[in-house]
């Protein structure tokens, strides 16, 4: 999802009787639904996997500002502009909450930033697609934030306290994101012929990338099995993807838009929608750096970081000058 490629320890979770007493006590706390807090003992693998996951999640929030930021200056009305600005501002906040949660595990913010800027850290594949027309602001809110919510709601119950609490805050804020997106989609779909065509075009482009957000099927993955035993992952990817399709298909129908999938239909037996898988080859290309906008996104983050350097240094220099002056007075 926002963390689509979290590698856990790479081995099957140990059974309780194979664990040493510390590991066992830890696992039993998790099984009882207790939260793990920063100062508690934890297995190294738990710490590492969480840092990676929260880092990917945080980077996704930050890079995720770019496709929408692209339209702030060109929003069709002042109201839409204020709304979009508020949404992008929220995403910056989400990045902050998550970076802070990761910092409680001893990972420094600068380290995480370096990993993002160098391209070593991953972020969600979805943000490597371009936003080409105004309806994309609708589709992003409706589909991308919609998919994010699907994943983030269960994470409010994740075993790591600071992560879970960050998720509670984030989920409270996401609902506005999805609704403002759907509101744009309504305006466009029920507007002129041209507007409706823009909405359809946007759905066509964002549908499969949104399905990819949940990550490839992982019911066989050892990484996921360990993460689920640790409750830092709550659902299988396919489970959430199916839920997303079930919830979104009727919404598209309401808008009078066609989801670009000939195989999409209600299955009376399973009481779910049947649907086509996205092109996973494309997903692996995008996640490994070869999507339509990967280079542009990283360049934008690097430029922002480099352009801000003189300012960050100036602030620190000023602060140390002030504290010297204070000490001299004392």
């Amino acid at each position, binding site marked *: 999802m926002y963390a689509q490629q979290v590698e856990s320890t790479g081995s099957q979770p140990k059974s309780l009787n194979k664990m040493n007493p510390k590991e066992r006590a830890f696992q039993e706390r998790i099984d009882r639904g*207790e939260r793990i*807090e920063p100062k508690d003992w934890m297995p190294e693998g738990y710490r590492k996997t969480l840092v990676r996951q929260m880092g990917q999640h945080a980077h996704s929030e930050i890079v995720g500002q770019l496709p929408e930021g692209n339209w702030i200056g060109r929003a069709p009305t002042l109201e839409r502009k204020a709304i979009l600005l*508020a949404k992008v501002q929220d995403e910056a906040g989400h990045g902050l909450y998550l970076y802070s949660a990761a910092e409680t595990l001893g990972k420094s913010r600068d380290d995480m930033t370096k990993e993002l800027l160098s391209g070593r850290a991953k972020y969600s594949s979805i943000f490597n697609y371009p936003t080409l027309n105004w309806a994309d602001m609708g589709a992003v809110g409706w589909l991308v934030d919609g998919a994010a919510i699907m994943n983030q709601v269960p994470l409010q119950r994740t075993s790591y306290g600071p992560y879970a609490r960050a998720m509670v805050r984030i989920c409270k804020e996401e609902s506005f994101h999805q609704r403002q997106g*759907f509101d744009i989609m309504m305006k466009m779909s029920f507007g002129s012929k041209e507007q409706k065509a823009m909405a359809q075009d946007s759905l066509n482009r964002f549908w499969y990338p949104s399905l990819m957000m949940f990550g490839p099927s992982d019911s066989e993955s050892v990484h996921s099995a360990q993460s689920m035993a640790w409750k830092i992952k709550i659902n299988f990817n396919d489970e959430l993807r199916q839920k997303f399709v079930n919830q979104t298909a009727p*919404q598209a129908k309401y808008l009078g838009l066609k989801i670009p999938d000939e195989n999409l239909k209600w299955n009376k037996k399973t009481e779910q929608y049947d649907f086509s898988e996205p092109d996973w080859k494309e997903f692996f290309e995008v996640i490994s750096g070869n999507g339509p906008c990967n280079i542009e996104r990283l360049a934008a983050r690097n430029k922002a970081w480099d352009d801000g350097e003189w300012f960050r240094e100036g602030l620190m220099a000023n602060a140390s000058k002030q504290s010297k002056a204070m000490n001299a007075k004392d």
Partner: protein
Amino acid sequence: MSIESPLWEVFIRGQHGTAHRHVGSLHASDAETAMNNARDVYTRRNEGLSIWVVPSNQIIASSPSQKGSMFDPSQGKIYRHPSFYDIPKVVKKI
């Protein structure tokens, strides 16, 4: 009285999963004493799973006289709330 011992703010995590909450303050000569006193004063009935003590003078508080300029700007931004958007009832799960 010669030197007054410093003031500390006390935060307690009452339940698994919740954040630390401010419960009050106390005087103590150093951090360790502050921690012990916090335990004695604020968790006598098993109210705590974890305690933070913070020197009061390290807390930067917003000033009540600036309440307007601090918080008014967000008041006009009603579009930050989901209820600002009219989505018909027939559209589910949004």
